[in-house]
């Protein structure tokens, strides 16, 4: 189960600067656990204590937003492409 994961700049401090890493897991939750085991500190940047993705972290599996799939339980196929992207947001005040 090799899964390619795109890492945003703000999280590359955990991946020794790598833009793309390879991970394992049958679901997004398993993938996050696998990444955390090799890139300590990245897990809590993605998933909160409630086990859900942080509000301003978007994760896409093969270009689909996991919020519209199964959230952290989204199944991953072998060869899936996962992109992690912090949401771009702001406002007037």
């Amino acid at each position, binding site marked *: 189960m090799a899964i390619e994961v795109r890492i945003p700049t*703000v999280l590359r401090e955990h991946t020794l600067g790598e833009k793309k890493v390879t991970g394992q897991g049958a679901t997004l939750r398993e993938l996050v656990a696998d990444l955390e085991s090799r890139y300590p500190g990245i897990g809590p940047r993605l998933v909160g204590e409630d086990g859900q993705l942080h509000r301003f972290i978007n994760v*896409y599996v093969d270009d689909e937003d996991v919020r519209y799939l199964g959230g952290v339980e989204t199944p991953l196929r072998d060869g899936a492409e996962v992109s992690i*992207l912090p*949401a*771009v947001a*702001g406002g*007037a005040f």
Partner: protein
Amino acid sequence: MTKAAIEGTVDLSRQVYDQMVAHARSDFPYEVCGMVAGTGGRFDRHYEIPNAERSMTFYKMDGKAHLKAITEIEDNDWEFGIYHSHTHTEAFPSVTDVELAVYPEAVYLIVSLQDPEPVIRAFDIRDGRITERVLTVDGEQAPAGNR
């Protein structure tokens, strides 16, 4: 007008500048957002990205449109900027803008429509600290209001 230390410059092509202003006006009084990209401190590509919030005071980039743009940008190793409009306030990052600025490599651009003449200003926002860049359009200094 709010000031920050000036550090560096950034250049927009005239076309990108005009596209950003036209985009900001197109959904007034709602905030719009998008990205720009290029090389060598000059942005000559423009991506309109829908504001998923469609608010007068808040923006959040549509995720899939953002993904499509940033994937193209990263695959080409382009530099990029993130812009949004302020329809009723000045072209300076708000507290919310600073809190939610999570792309330290980006130039943050703000288009203000509070005055009849639009103003675009450019900033770096890193670790909660704001610095401003001198903005030029095809090499000529753009209107930035009184500094």
